[in-house]
C-alpha cells in the first residue's frame, strides 16, 4: 500500500483527501476517486526526481494527453494543461487532476463549453480573437503547392468560423458567443482543435483506471 502513497501523506490524510474530493466533484464515486488518485500517483511517481510533491508537471501531463487521450496538437495540449492547472503553478495537483478529469470524462455540456473556451482563449483575455483562431487553425488545411497564398485558406476559415460564432459582431468570440454557438450546434464544441477525449479513449481510460484497481 505504501507504493501508492508517495506524496508523503499518512493513510488517514489520504483517505480524507479522497473523501473531500469525492464530495467536491460529485461525478465520481468514492471508489472511482481513489482509482484516479492511484493513477495520479503512479504518473507522478514515474519521475520521482521531478516531483516536488506538488503533482504532474507539464511534460508528464502532456504525455498523458498524448498517449491516453490521443491528442496531438502541441499548442492545444499546452492549453489543456493550463486549463487543468487552475492555480497556475505549472503543476497539476491531485485536486486539479480529479476536478479536471470530472469535466474531461463526465462533464456536462455547459462545463465542457467552459473548459473548451478556456483552452481556446490562448491569452486568457476572455475572448477568442482572430489571431488566436488563426494560430489554432494554422495547420488545419493541407497546403497545396499551387496555392498562391498558403495562409489564405486558413484566414478564410477563420472568417467562416467568426461569421458562425460571433453573434455580437465585435470581431471576436466572447464566452457568450461561444456558448450560444455550441448550444446551437454541438459540433462546434471543439471548433478549433480537439481538446476533449473522444468517446473511445475516454471509455478505455475509465475501464483501465477503474477496473485495474478493482482487481487489486
Amino acid at each position: 500500500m505504501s507504493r501508492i502513497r508517495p506524496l508523503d501523506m499518512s493513510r488517514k490524510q489520504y483517505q480524507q483527501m479522497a473523501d473531500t474530493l469525492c464530495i467536491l466533484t460529485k461525478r465520481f464515486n468514492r471508489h472511482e476517486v481513489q482509482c484516479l488518485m492511484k493513477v495520479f500517483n503512479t504518473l507522478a511517481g514515474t519521475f520521482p526526481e521531478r516531483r516536488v510533491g506538488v503533482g504532474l508537471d507539464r511534460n508528464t501531463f502532456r504525455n498523458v494527453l498524448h498517449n491516453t487521450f490521443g491528442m496531438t496538437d502541441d499548442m492545444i495540449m499546452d492549453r489543456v494543461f493550463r486549463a487543468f492547472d487552475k492555480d497556475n503553478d505549472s503543476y497539476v495537483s491531485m485536486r486539479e487532476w480529479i476536478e479536471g478529469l470530472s469535466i474531461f470524462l463526465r462533464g456536462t455540456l455547459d462545463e465542457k463549453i467552459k473548459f473548451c473556451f478556456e483552452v481556446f482563449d490562448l491569452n486568457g483575455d476572455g475572448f477568442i480573437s482572430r489571431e488566436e483562431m488563426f494560430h489554432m487553425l494554422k495547420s488545419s488545411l493541407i497546403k497545396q503547392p499551387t496555392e498562391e497564398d498558403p495562409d489564405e485558406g486558413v484566414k478564410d476559415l477563420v472568417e467562416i468560423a467568426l461569421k458562425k460564432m460571433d453573434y455580437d459582431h465585435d470581431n471576436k468570440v466572447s464566452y457568450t458567443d461561444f456558448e450560444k454557438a455550441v448550444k446551437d450546434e454541438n459540433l462546434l464544441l471543439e471548433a478549433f482543435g480537439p481538446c476533449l477525449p473522444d468517446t473511445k479513449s475516454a471509455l478505455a481510460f475509465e475501464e483501465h483506471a477503474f477496473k485495474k484497481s478493482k482487481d487489486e
Partner: protein
Amino acid sequence: MGIALTRAAQWTAAGIGVGKLEFTPLNVSLLNSIIKFVEYVSSKHPQEAALVFREPLEWTSKLEISAFGSDYQISGKTVVSKENMDGNPLLLFEASTGVIKVSTFNQLAKLLEITPKEKLKETQACLEANRDPIAKMLGPSFATVEGEDKSMLHLLEKVKKGDQDPQAEIQMKLFLLLQQLDMQLLNTTLQKISQEVRLNPQAVKSDVQLLQSFSGEGDKTVLKSINYTSEYEFSNGCRAPPWRQVYGDICYLIINTHDTDTLYVTCSTAGVFLNGGLMKDSEDIIYDRNGDIYKDLITFLKEKSLTFAENLTQVQQNFALQKKSPSSRKAQRAEVPINEELDQSEKFTDYQDKNKLEKKKTSSKPKTRDTKKEEQSYVKKNLESSHQLFSKDDKTQMKDQDPDKIKQDKGTDETVATGKYRCKAPQEKKHLSQRASRASGISEELSESSTESEEEQEDMDRQQESNTDLPSEYWQIQKVVKYLKGGNQTATVIALCSMRDFNLASETCQLAIRDVGGLEVLINLLDTEETKCKIGSLKILKEISKNPQIQRCLADLGGLQIMVKILDSSNKDLKCLAAETIANIARFRRARQTVRLHGGIQRLVGLLDCVPMLSANLSAEQEKDIEVARCGALALWSCSKSKKNKDAIRKAGGIPLLACLLKSPHENMLIPVVGTLQECASEPSYRLAIRTENMVTDLVRNLNSESQELQMHCARAIFKCAEDEETRNLVRTHNGLAPLVKLFSKSDNKELLAAATGAVWKCAISRENVDRFKHLRIIETLINLLVGQPEEVLINVVGALGQCARDHVIRAIIRRSGGIDPLVNLLTGTNHALLVNVTKAVGECAVDAENMSIIESLDGVRLLWSLLKKPNPDIQASAAWALCPCIENAKEAGEMVRSFVGGLELIVNLLKSDNIEVLASVCAALAKIAMDEENLAVITDHGVVPMLSSLTYTRDDKLRQHLADAVACCCKWGNNRVAFGETGAVAPLVHYLKSKNPLVHRATAEALHQLSFDPKNCITMHENGVVKLLLNLMDSTDEALQEAAAGCISNIRRLALANEKARYK
C-alpha cells in the same frame, strides 16, 4: 521583379546563368521599365538607393573607361567610384576583363546616366548575369522561389528582431519598391501577351464555315466562294500535309472575292497570308509566303477585298461579326438568334462553332485572370507585411490600393463559376479536372505563352461555360467544399457547420453542392473514423437528400452502403442521422433494393428495439433510444414500399417491435410506425399479424389522435386490413367505426377523407358493421360527399354506399336523401375503379322498385349498358351484375331492353370473354333478359344457345350457377331445348349436381327440368346417371330445388313409361 524576370521575360534557354534575354519587343519594354525604375528609386528614395547591396551586382560590361566621368577615380585599367562604404568602392570596373561591380541603386542610376546609348544593353547584360538580382541586393533569403514567397516573412522577422536596426527598415522599403516593380512588369507583360493570340485549327475552321455561310454569287454576299484545297481533315483539325504542319500551317484556302483575283491563302498558327498559289500542272501549292501576315482570316480579307469589307459591315449591322474586343462577346451572343431569323441561310446553324470561335478570340482572358490573381496575392502580401495579419485597416488599405484589380478578379472568377454551373454533371467532372489542371499550370502559363493544345483544352472548357446569373451561394459552397476536401478534422467541422448555414432546402444550394463535387466529399467523410465529421456530414446529407436528384446521386455514389454500416455504430446520434437520411434516399426502388441487399433492413429493425415507452420517467439515454427507434421506423417506412422489403422486415422480426412501438404515446413515433404498417398491410401476412398481435386496438385508438397525418395512416391501415372479416369485426368491437365516421368532418384534408371513407367502405362489407353505420347515420354524409370530391375519395364513398345499400332501409335512405341522382351521374365517369364501384352501388339501389323508377327516369340503365362496351373486364362484369336487378325491377323491362340498339348483340358477344366473372355476370343478365320472350327470340338469333353450351365445361361454381340459370331461362323459346341437347350442354350440366354449392344445385335442377321436356335430353340425362343425383337432392329444404328436381324426374319417368307403353303395345 524576381517573378517577372523569371517568368515573364523571354529567355533564350532555360539553363540558369547562361541564358540570354531574347531581343523581343516584350523584353525591351521590360528592360525599359526596369531602367525607369532604377532612375526613379535613386531620385525619389535617396535612402533606399544608398543601401549597399549584400553582394554587388556583377556583369561584363562593354563600357569604355573614357565613359566614366568625374565621380569616378580612374587608375590605370580600373575605375572606382568616389563614393564608398567602409573603404569598399560602390562601383568597381576593370577595363581589362570588362567586369563591373555595382553595389547601390545610386551607382546603378549613375551608370545608366553616363551611358545613355548603352542603357539597354547594359541592363540586359546585368540582368543576364544576375538572374535573381533581389537575392543579391538583399541577401539570399530573398531569393525568388517558385510557388511560395517567404521573403516577406523573412523581412518581417528581421524587422521584428532588430527594431533598432535602421538598415532593416530601409531594406524593407526597398523590397517593397522592388515588389511593386515586379507587379508593374507583370502587368505590362500581360498586356503584351494577351495581344498575341495564335490561330488554331478550330478557329480557322469556324471562320471558314462562317464565311461559307455568307458566300455565294449574289451581290450582297461577302465572298463568291471560299474553299479548302484539301477535303481531308487530320485528327488534329489541320488540313495541311503533315510535313507542312511542322511549320505551323493549318490549311490552305482558295478564295474567290467579288473584286480581286482568286486568292490562294495559307492559314498557319502564325496568322493568315497569301501563298504562291497553285503550281502549274499539279495540285501542289507553292508554300512560300507572298505578302504580309494577318492575325486572322477576316482581317486578311478586309485588307484584300473592298467588297468584302463593305458587305461585311452590312452584315454586321445585323450580326456582330466583329470579334476583336472580348467585351462585345456577350452582346454578340444575344444577337445571334435574331440574326438567324433574319438571315434565312439554312447553313447558318453552327452556333456552337461560332461560340467556339468567339471564345478562341478571347482565350487570352483566362490567362489574364490567373495572373491577376497571382498579382493580387502579391499585393496582399505586400500589405500584410505589417505585423497584424488581420487588422481591419490592412484590408481597407488593400482595397484602396488596388480596388480595380480586386473587382476585376472577382468578376472573372464569377464568370467562370457561372459557366460551370450551367454544365451538366458529366461535363462538370471533366471541367473540374480541367480547372484543376489549369490551376496547377498557372506558373507555366505565366512563363510562356500557352501551347496549342493547352489553348484547345481551354477552348473546350470555355465552351461549356456560358453566361447566366449565378447564385452567389454557388461559389461560396465551392469554397467551403474546398476546405472540406483539404482540411483536417477541425477545419472540416468548421466547414461543415458553415455549410449548414446555407439554405439547404433550396434546390440551388442542393445542386450546387452536387455540382462542385460536394457529395463525394460528404460521403467520403462518412467512411472516416471521425464521429464529428460523420455527424456533420450526415446532418447536411439529411437535408439535401430531400431532393430527388440528390437522392439518386447519393445512391449512385454508394452512400447507402456506408450509411447502412453506420447503423451499427455505437453513437446514437449517428444512428439517428443515418437512418433519417436513408429514409430520405429510399424513395425510389433501386435505393430500397440497395438498402435491403446490404443488410439494412435487419439493422433498421434492430434500431426499433427500445425500452417500453409507457414508463413514466425516462433517462436521457432511454429518450435517445426512443429517438433512434423513431428514425429506424422512418427509414423502414420508406423502405417498406417494396414488396421484398416488406418480407425482409417481417423476417427480421419487425412486426412485434412495430406492435410494441405502436403503444407509444408520441405522434412523431406513431406516424412512421403506422405508416410502415399501413404500407405493409398490403401483404396478407401483415394483415394476419396486425389482427393477431392485437394492433387493431392501437390503430383504433389513434384514430382519435390530434394529428391528421396519423389519423390518415391509421385509417389507411384499417382500410387495407379490413379485407379480412375478423379484422372488420375487431374494428367494430373496439368501437372503431364511430371515430372513422367522425373523420368525415375533415373534408378539407382529402387524403384523410379518402383513407377514412376507404376504411368505412371495407368495414361495410360486414353486415353487422352496416347496421352500426346505419345508427351512426353516415348515409347522408356519404351522399353529400358524392359531389365535388376528388376521385380517390369518390371511389371509396361510392364503394361504401354500394356495400351499405345491401340493406333495404339504407336503400330507402339513399333515395330519400337524393343519392341516386349523383350516383347515376357518376356512371359517365372514366375512372375504372370508380366505375366498378358506381355500377355496383347503382345495381344495389336498383333492387328497390322505387329506386329503379328513379334510375330509369335518369336513363341509368342505358348508361350501365353502355359500360359493357368498356374494355376493362371488371367494369363489364360489374355493369352486367348491376343490370340484373335493373331488368328485373324495371317496368316494361322488355321494351326498355329492346330500345337499346345493338344492346342484345353486345351482351351476347360478351360470352366470348375469357373472364369468369364477366361470363357469370353476363349469364345472370341474360337469364333476366330471357324473361321477355321477344328478347329471348332476339338473343337466340344472336346464337346464345351454342355459346352457352360451349361454356358448360367450366368448373367455377359461380359461373355454373348463373350459366345453368341462363340455360333454364333460354329453354323456353322455340327449339332451344333441342339445340342445347345437340350442342352437348346436357351431360356437363348433369355433373353440376355433384357440386357442393346448393345454389348451383337449384339452378341446375331448374335447367335440367326445362331441358327434360325434350326426350332426347332425357335419354342423355339418364345415361349420365341424373336420376340418382336428383333423388338425393329431393330431400333438400329448398322448395324450388325440390320442385325442379321432381319435375325433371317426372319428365324422365314419363318418357320411360311412354316408351314401355309403346313397346308393349
